[in-house]
């Protein structure tokens, strides 16, 4: 028997779907699930002999063609050559502001996170920024962030070719509406519910009364993910790839 689809695999497949149509996807450091999602999209396009997808994984040698140091990612984004990127946040609020700096009064934060990284730039110039945060709790999804590393929307007249596109969490998938602005719930992951998501979200969002369930991957997609994608992922994220492999073999019950 094939192992049942795991929550992580649903996240990876959801990311591949969100990325569909991108020609060049970049993935930041320490982001195994987004990296797997981008690799899955590339594998699916290769399988269908569709237009090739370029994937740039920071921290990888094999899956990274930058040769101009750590500035090249940002230069590349500024030139409009990166279609999709991922950002997270210690806090994310209902208008898409993200906080990667800390909790409390800046600069003497009571909890300090690493810092804004490239978000204060990339959020402006990458058309499809996918906000990815597995932990779905009211301390992450707040009404108002304590520090704006990067704003969800900008005043008219501010140069902005990019911004939030979707928000993917361990419980569900949201789309971002720049005009409102705000998030709307697109689907609930299997095993979770709308009341649970409402309880865990500190900001208001729109939703259907009976939201759909995040789809599980078809057999072709799952095969690519468990084969080629984990093989590719191993170079940058050996521990993560090995752990997924163990889960898959533990879940595959003998017939």
């Amino acid at each position: 028997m094939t192992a049942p689809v795991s929550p992580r695999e649903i996240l990876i497949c959801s990311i591949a779907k969100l990325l569909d149509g991108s020609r060049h996807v970049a993935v930041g450091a320490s982001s195994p699930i987004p990296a797997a999602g981008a690799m899955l999209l590339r594998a699916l396009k290769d399988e269908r002999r569709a237009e090739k997808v370029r994937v740039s994984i920071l921290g990888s040698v094999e899956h990274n063609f930058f040769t101009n140091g750590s500035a090249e990612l940002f230069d590349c984004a500024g030139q409009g050559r990166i279609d999709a990127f991922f950002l997270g946040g210690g806090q994310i609020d209902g208008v898409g502001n993200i906080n990667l700096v800390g909790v409390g009064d800046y600069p003497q934060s009571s909890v300090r996170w690493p810092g804004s990284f490239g978000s204060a730039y990339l959020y402006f110039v990458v058309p499809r920024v996918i906000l990815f945060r597995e932990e779905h709790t009211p301390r992450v999804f707040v009404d108002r962030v304590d520090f704006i590393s990067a704003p969800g929307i900008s005043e008219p007249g501010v140069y902005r070719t990019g911004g939030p596109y979707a928000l993917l969490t361990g419980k569900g998938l949201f789309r971002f509406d720049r005009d409102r602005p705000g998030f709307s719930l697109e689907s609930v992951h299997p095993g979770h519910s709308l009341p649970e998501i409402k309880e865990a979200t500190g900001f208001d969002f729109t939703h259907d009364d009976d939201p759909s369930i995040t789809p599980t991957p078809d057999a072709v997609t799952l095969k690519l993910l468990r084969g080629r994608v984990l093989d590719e992922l191993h170079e940058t994220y050996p521990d993560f790839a090995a752990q997924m492999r163990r889960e898959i073999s533990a879940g595959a019950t003998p017939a």
Partner: protein
Amino acid sequence: MHTDLEALARQIEPGMRIALPVDYAGVSMAMTRPIIRHGAGDLDLICVPTGGLQVDMLVGAGLVRSVETSAVSLGEAGGAPRFNQAVKDGAIGLRDATCPAIHAGLMAAQKGSPFTAMRGLIGTDVLKNREDWRIIDNPFAESGDPIVLIPAIHPDITIFHAPMADRFGNVWIGRRRELAAMAYASKMTFVTVERIVDESLLASETLAAGTLPALYVSEIAVAPRGAWPYGLWGEYSTDTVELLRYAKAARTAEGFAAYMSGAAAEPAK
């Protein structure tokens, strides 16, 4: 060999601006303890564009006045404990940035220009807290187009680690071009290397393209496994177990002091 590192460290004076590379680009961890032993304080660190273990150790040792950075962390080993504590205590000045702004500041210095303009940033609290950055109206636009100016960053010293140098003082940096940007912008550049080769790196077209010429390099010292416990591209990988050991020890000031005086001063063979 160690004398070399100590001699380099002695050139650091209190109040200098020191530029240090991101954890995967070639951190001269071998210089960290010599710098701490030398003890010149009030340093202003510039992380290009983020910092890690070396920054945390220098902060923990009380040598740092301010940190300009886009982030500080120990990567897979979690948050940077001494840096985070110093932030909480208000013990260091913070100049939070975003990666391309640090690159932009170095780029301006590289070109001998006073500043570079860059997109993004408007509406962020990063910009709000940087009195040294400015918004102007793009003078080339037909209608209003606000854009941020980042002043040139001029470090006193850049310190990094690379695989090799030649006898003539040229250093091979491969595709880690930010190391060149740092050197161009700095008054002095100290490089530790795994080895020194006899033949000029500029003699081969293949190697020359990835070589930082001696013009920009002030001092070179040999330090085998000098990035440890960080990895060095093309040479060896990061010792995550050691990073985790540090992360655990440095949760307290006492644990940090014990770690720093401990036997782990040398890389595992």
